[in-house]
């Protein structure tokens, strides 16, 4: 047994020495997955978006730009995309201060409870998103927890209409996406050596200035990835607007779903998806450009 083992080892080593084997192992497999799971579906969507919608909801492969023309002329779709982006910005704006303070606390804290708290942050992901979303209905509806509490305290005389509005959707999204803000901030803050903060203090920095000069700039990468995660996920949210939002809530993902599944207009749905994709890609480009710019300004200044 030992001989076959000792022969197999070198044989395997020899095999892995081959350039082709090495290519397939290292960049190859990654490229294959990227192609299969990302490039291929996108290509299919692009192709369909230029196809004609058949009479019975089937896709007729005749080249047309009609789907895009319909979008360009359809003011309502522009508004929906703008609404989605605004919802994304609002949720991100809410999640940032909450997530940053929590992530900062966890990153700097030295208590043994830190791991319990971190566990609690992630714990909600053990429950499927749809169940967590339904749970909000119990909390926010007219005879839900919050209204009962406020009525009981006499703070209000009529139940607040939070449920099935923009507000309930924003609340639901913010809370469920908080971990995406907390965790990157936590990681970036916890990697800052405490002695750097001590050094800043011995050099004359108050606690606040030490935070502003040392901790905050070094936690920017965490903020950037947190903002990206929360914005992209919330602007493209599907379940929260469907379950928590009201009749006036229009977000892009449920609309695309309607065009796909109810209207059976696959080419137009595909065109909508591509347009939304390009808008997000453009915004991300601007955002990362701006972050780079800020870094450049920061280090160039003084």
């Amino acid at each position: 047994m030992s001989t076959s083992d000792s022969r197999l080892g070198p044989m395997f080593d020899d095999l892995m020495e081959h350039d082709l084997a090495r290519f397939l192992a290292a960049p190859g497999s990654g490229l294959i997955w990227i192609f299969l799971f990302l490039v291929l579906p996108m290509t299919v969507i692009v192709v369909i978006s230029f196809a004609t919608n058949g009479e019975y909801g089937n896709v007729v492969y005749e080249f047309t730009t009609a789907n895009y023309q319909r979008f360009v002329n359809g003011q309502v779709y522009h508004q929906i995309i703008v609404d989605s982006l605004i919802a994304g910005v609002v949720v991100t704006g809410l999640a940032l201060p909450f997530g940053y303070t929590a992530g900062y606390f966890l990153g700097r804290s030295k208590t043994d409870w830190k791991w319990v708290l971190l566990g609690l942050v992630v714990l909600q992901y053990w429950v499927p998103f749809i169940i967590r979303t339904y749970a909000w209905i119990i909390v926010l509806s007219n005879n839900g927890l919050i209204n009962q509490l406020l009525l009981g305290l006499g703070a209000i005389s009529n139940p607040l209409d939070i449920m099935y509005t923009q507000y309930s959707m924003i609340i639901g999204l913010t809370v469920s996406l908080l971990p995406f803000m907390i965790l990157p901030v936590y990681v970036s803050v916890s990697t800052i050596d405490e002695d750097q903060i001590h050094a800043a203090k011995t050099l004359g920095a108050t606690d606040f200035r030490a935070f502003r000069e040392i901790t905050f700039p070094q936690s920017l990468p965490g903020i950037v990835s947190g903002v990206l995660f929360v914005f992209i996920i919330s602007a493209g949210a599907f379940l929260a607007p469907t379950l928590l939002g009201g009749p006036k809530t229009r977000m892009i993902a449920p609309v695309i779903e309607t065009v796909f599944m109810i209207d059976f207009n696959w080419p137009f749905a595909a065109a909508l998806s591509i347009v939304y994709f390009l808008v997000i890609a453009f915004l991300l480009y601007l955002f990362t450009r701006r972050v780079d710019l800020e870094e450049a300004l920061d280090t160039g200044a003084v």
Partner: protein
Amino acid sequence: MAFLELDALSKQFGDLTAVDDVSLDIEEGSFVTIVGPSGCGKTTILRSITGLETPSSGEIRLQGEDITELPPYRRNIGLVFQDYALFPHKTVFDNVAFGLKMRGASEERQRERVEEMLEMVNLEGYEEKYPNECSGGEQQRIAVARAIAFDPDLVLMDEPLSNLDKNLRNSIRTELRRIQNETGVTTVYVTHNQNEALSLGDKLAVMNNGELEQYDAPETVYRNPSSPFVADFLGRSTQVHGTYHRQNGTATARLGPADSGLELTVPPNDDIADGDEVSVFLRDEKLKLHDGSQPRDNTFAGVIEDVDYRGRDVNYFIHVPELDQTIQVSHIPDNASSDFLDVGDDAQVYILPENITCLEGR
């Protein structure tokens, strides 16, 4: 009134006493080293002086003013960290200028002073680099420049050379001494390395188990250690137990099993009574090989047990039957004579009485 006074400083961490009733006076412009094994409380003392740690009891006075409770940023004390703690997201310029910026110095003043500092540590032109683009030795010097740039009353250094390789350590050690001479800033330097401790400071404080063992000029501490710990910690010596005897002005120590083995003449010490138990410390460089050409006092014989050739000197481990102990002798060989001994050879050793440290107790 000394420039910096530590008055009965103590610090407890739970049940552990890190610093135990330490009092220390440091004169203005002096370079004081605190040496001791790890965990002896030297770093805690340093952090208490900077304000990063608050002592459990005692007082710290700087120029007569009680600063014990002052937050770090209200003190004017520079600290060089063991791992430098440079700000990785700031350029060398912004690192060195940080203390000045926090004190609201004008940009012109910052530029002027940083340039001066970088010149002093031989890092001209490093302003726009980032710390991770600099070598360990360069980072170390940036940390020193940063701690001095804002004209602190006092600069503290916490094992600043321990992360550097040996050659670099020696050259930066010389440089630190030069910088201190140039700036004249009062410096407290903490280390566990006895070479640094002996060569750097005007004064040397030896600590053990949170207590101050001895505080004096390095030569004095080395020559006349006041406690068995200090004698053992600085230099290399063999500790031998025995009893002290005094007769007509000459003092002797009877060493070895049942005090019958060997009698050495030792420096007289009025603090030790006739018949007291003593520890005798024989420094390896003070023990000399005896070639028998002229009679010597304090001679004893043994057999070479092991030889450790180290280039500039040879370490002989000599078993002395009279002591029933192996002693260590550092011998500097002379190329003119072939006095190289081998394992199994007989050897005669002597030591001048003045070179013996004899302390009460076991």
